[in-house]
């Protein structure tokens, strides 16, 4: 059986390492990272900084270089150029030290189909440098009723939960999650968010990739959006949103000409000063007795930014 301890309390060895690593506030530092596959450069000069204790989201289109970047951070892929430091270690040369402090969820499961859920977690416990309890993780990820079910019989969502359970085994200092909620139903996705939030509350650093922008908005302290091997935008959500214009829109009645410089009848305005320009627009409508329909105003969203980056690159 697995070595029983308190709820995810790391071993003394890990605690000692943690104290050493706490000296720096930077959990991950990446400078001018480049990765080439033959003649193709998948990652083209990426700079990243992930601070200790934060949730950092790496966004991007398919093929943007997110997974390749993560694989370099995990020590599974050699970099062609650049500097990478993870918890003060070089993942390329010190992966054996890093994996004692890092939990990883891959984009795809990679479990043995013939083992049961319970056996998978028990085996993981014996292979892990950290200590935890199978029962705690089964309970945490709603897998108790599936304990004696073979992995081959699990649904996609259950496999993702099992995957996450192994990644957070023993509450590692750094958890890297590659699309942790892909394929999950809304309830399971919410539970995964809760688990990630718990990790952060416990002082852990979390790096995740996701295609779900609302997930990044809900979980991440800071985000980076990658496109075609580069980081197009990075920073806190507030910083990124503030750097992009807000917008308002409305539909004019048929036959009403829009204000000068705008198209109608569906008016869309991007602005750096939402209050000023919206007030002016509403004043224009009031002066003319125009009844607006579908009036909406909103600050820039992550989705707007994401889409604008894609269109700018095109």
């Amino acid at each position, binding site marked *: 059986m697995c070595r029983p301890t308190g709820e995810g309390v790391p071993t003394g060895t890990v605690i000692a390492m943690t104290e050493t690593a706490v000296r720096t506030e930077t959990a991950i530092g990446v400078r001018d990272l480049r990765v080439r596959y033959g003649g193709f450069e998948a990652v083209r000069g990426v700079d990243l900084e992930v601070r200790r204790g934060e949730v950092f989201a790496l966004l991007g289109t398919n093929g943007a270089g997110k997974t390749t970047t993560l694989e370099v951070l*995990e020590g*599974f892929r050699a970099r062609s150029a650049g500097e990478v430091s993870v918890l003060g270690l070089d993942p390329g040369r010190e992966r*054996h030290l890093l*994996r*004692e402090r890092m*939990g*990883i969820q*891959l984009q*795809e*499961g*990679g*479990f*043995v*189909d*013939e*083992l049961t859920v319970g*056996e998978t977690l028990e*085996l*993981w416990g*014996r*292979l*892990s*440098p*950290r200590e935890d309890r199978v029962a705690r993780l089964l309970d945490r990820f709603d897998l108790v009723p599936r304990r004696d079910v073979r992995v081959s019989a699990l649904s996609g969502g259950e496999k993702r939960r099992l995957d996450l359970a*192994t*990644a957070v085994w023993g509450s590692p200092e750094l958890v890297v999650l590659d699309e942790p909620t892909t394929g999950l139903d809304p309830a399971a996705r919410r539970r995964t968010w809760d688990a990630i939030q718990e990790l952060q509350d416990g002082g852990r650093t979390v790096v995740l990739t996701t295609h779900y922008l609302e997930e990044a908005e809900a979980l991440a302290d800071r985000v980076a959006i990658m496109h075609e091997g580069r980081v197009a935008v990075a920073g806190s959500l507030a910083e990124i949103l503030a750097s992009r214009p807000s917008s308002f829109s409305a539909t004019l009645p048929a036959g009403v000409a829009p204000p000068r410089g705008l198209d109608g009848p569906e008016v869309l305005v991007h602005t750096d000063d939402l209050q000023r320009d919206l007030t002016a627009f509403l004043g224009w409508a009031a002066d003319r007795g125009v009844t607006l329909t579908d009036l909406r105003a909103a600050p820039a969203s992550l989705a707007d930014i994401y889409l604008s980056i894609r269109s700018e690159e095109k």
Partner: protein
Amino acid sequence: MNRVLALTRSELRLIFRNKTVLISTLAVPLGLGLFFALTGFGDGSGASIIAMQLAMVLGLGIYVAATQTLVARRQNLVLKRLRTSGISDAGLLTATIAPVVVLAVVQMVLFAVVDVAFGLPVPTSPLPVVLAAVGGLALVVTAALATAVVTPTAERAQITTLPLFFVMVGGAVVLAFLPLEGIATVVNLVPGAPLGSLANVAYGGSAFSPVQVASLVVWPVLFGLLAKRHFRWDARA
């Protein structure tokens, strides 16, 4: 070490859960080995029977089975996943291959018991047989790692393992009958051929040659270097 043992136990359990793997790993080589003992393969001398038993258990029981296991584990991303745990890369490969090696060793012991029980002549010098078993073990384990390099799927392993398997069996059979003279000495350089010639030496049918040892050392080193340089952990191209 505890991690390697834990994963080895888990892999061993999986062999007994999968009937197809159990048959190919245990039943087929065991059955063939017993068949050779019962029918007195070839001239009925101990050398040819022991050579074939070694070739079957090492070739089918370890080489083919280990290649299939490695490729299957890579194909379904188990190797990649387990690399994120605390086990070392060497430990992971060792634990993945160890169960078929353990079963093969058990089969060799069974063959020895059966051979004695059926009145097969006892080798005049058992040391060459031990050398053949140990050297052969190193050969097939490293060959499995090297073959996994060029094998994309578990199904394809049934094809990619055939050339070396037949070369090994063919070389072992030929040299089990021939005295080590002239061209026969050179044939020892064929991977696996010393299994036959060393069995022959054990029964006094031939003299010992350093070429046998050289062959059992050089091929594992070459296969090992090939695997070390080119082994892939990820199914992705």
